[in-house]
């Protein structure tokens, strides 16, 4: 059918180049991912002789052992707790601050906003040692809050900027009408601004969640107890224990990135929106 038609029309070299180029990049991206997924289904011996192909004998055991281990679920639970704390605290503090910056004019407002914006400039790593000492002095070392609070602090700059811009776009007439009707600023925030801002709240929440879920340095510095480790720390420990038993490590990696990939597929719109919204700002 269509193949006969294709063979008769001369192939446009530009199209051919594009197809080949895209295929090469796709292979470059896919091969490590597929090898990880499939490697978890192989035995160590087969991994050595057959690292690329489909498993000749599917070792479901590798995956099921991990799925039925308390360790795996504990890591996910810890990550979920820390990331949820970070998201909830970021959304509350950032939306309140953004609302004030958007709707209340006061002396020093723009100065305070630029002060917060400074947070975009430098990485958490520059101050991680004093941060460790601060968290220790506050008695938060080895607690979920000790990891989540600095993460909130570092995500505030971007979150406040994104939310403030969205809040400003809510028509001023709406606020005016509400005030005339006797509504207060706080009620307006609670019953008008927040419900109207669901898309941007979802975007800020998703970005904060992904950053916290994937974070390594802050948990590494703030947590000493294995039982509190989020999954990036846990998987490093696991890899240390099983050093060259790659079939187990690959299965473990696959199962820990699975939640990330599911989240991405569910929240793809919000992730990309946050990325480009943050980018356009400059």
């Amino acid at each position, binding site marked *: 059918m269509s193949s006969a038609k294709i063979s008769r029309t001369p192939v446009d070299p530009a199209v051919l180049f*594009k197809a080949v180029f*895209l295929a090469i990049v796709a292979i470059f*991206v*896919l*091969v*490590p*991912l597929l090898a*990880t997924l499939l*490697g978890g289904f192989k035995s160590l011996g087969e991994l*050595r002789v057959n*690292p*690329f192909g489909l498993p000749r004998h599917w070792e479901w055991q590798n995956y099921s052992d991990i799925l039925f281990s308390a360790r795996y679920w504990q890591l996910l639970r810890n990550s979920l707790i820390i990331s949820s704390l970070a998201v909830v*605290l970021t959304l509350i*503090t950032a939306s*309140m601050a953004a*609302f*004030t910056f958007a709707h*209340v004019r*006061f002396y020093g407002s723009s100065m305070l906003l630029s*002060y*917060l914006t400074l947070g975009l*400039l*430098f*990485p958490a*790593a*520059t101050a*991680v*040692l*004093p*941060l*460790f*000492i601060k968290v220790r002095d506050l008695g938060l070392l080895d607690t979920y809050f000790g990891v989540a*609070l*600095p993460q909130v*602090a570092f995500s505030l*700059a971007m979150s406040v900027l994104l939310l403030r811009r969205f809040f400003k776009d809510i028509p*001023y007439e709406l606020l005016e009408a509400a005030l*005339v009707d006797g509504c*207060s*600023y*706080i*009620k307006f925030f609670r019953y008008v601004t927040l419900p109207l801002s669901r898309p941007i709240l979802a975007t800020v929440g998703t970005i904060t969640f992904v950053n916290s879920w*994937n974070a*390594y*340095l802050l948990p590494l*510095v703030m947590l000493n107890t294995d039982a509190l480790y989020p999954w*990036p720390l846990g998987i490093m420990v696991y*890899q240390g224990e099983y050093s*060259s038993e*790659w079939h187990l*490590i690959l299965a473990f*990696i696959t199962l820990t*990135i699975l939640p*990330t990939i599911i989240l991405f597929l569910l929240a793809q719109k919000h*992730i*990309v929106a946050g*990325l*480009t919204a943050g*980018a356009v700002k*400059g």
Partner: protein
Amino acid sequence: MARRIANSPAIGVAETPFSSLAVRGPAWDGRFTVLILFLPPALLLFTLFVVLPIGEAAWYSAFNWNGFGRPTNWIGFDNYRFVLETRAFWLALRNNGLIIAVSLAVQLPLALTLALMLAERFRGSVALRMLFFMPYILAEIATGLIFSFVYDGDYGLVASIWRSFGAEPPHLLASTDTSMLAVLIVIVWKYFGFHMMLFIAALQSLDKSLIEAARIDGATRLQALRHVVIPLLYPTIRLSVFFAIVGSLQLFDLVMPLTRGGPADSSNTMVSFLYNNGISRMRVGYGSAIGVILFAICVTFAFTYKRWFMRDE
């Protein structure tokens, strides 16, 4: 204090000078309460966990201190001298330079080419975009572990390619000559999709009529690209360059599972150097000095870049 809250001119009732102090009547709209309740949490967290630690890093860097008790052993600028006298520090700095160079010379052109190919919808274009963006979503730790498998001299993909040519497989991550090259490849793999998405978003918001006008005026496709599309993308390109450089300066999570900065410091970045020398040995003064140097580099870069390249934004 309360009088300083500027009244919104559009609200008639709020125009008397003391209206925001009035507790009863329509003028009381809670603006002052918002101000004293809504700002402090964010400002407090930000000050406590972001601003103060940076100031304290500068303070601690003047001490020889292991983090216990109070810092007492004042040594002035000696920590900075010790850092600058360490060969490994300059290696780390060079590596950050290499990462920036590869990001700008390989990653961004690749991302731009792919964006130009995938900005228009065709069968599979959305799926390809998502596939190329996928590495960016993965945690650095997971990415690093996946590639330490890929590079593994016994079980890895690279090793089996070598063996199929009948050669003894190299241990790329274990050699000082190749460790950094191996890390750079992973960096391209992980981050090109992020820049591609930025470019796609920019391309989709371009005014298409300008391109059409150029085509009608007789410009070839390549000429339109060179003289219309790329210049229109400059703001995004500048931003992408900014992200690439700031990101390169902070790279850490990816290096740890791959090489931990080794062998013999050959693949350290500034942050992994800070971690290996300051944090894991709790040399707080020394580590803080590295942090302050990194901070100075980031801030100097950010301000210079903003001033020179992003003046119009």
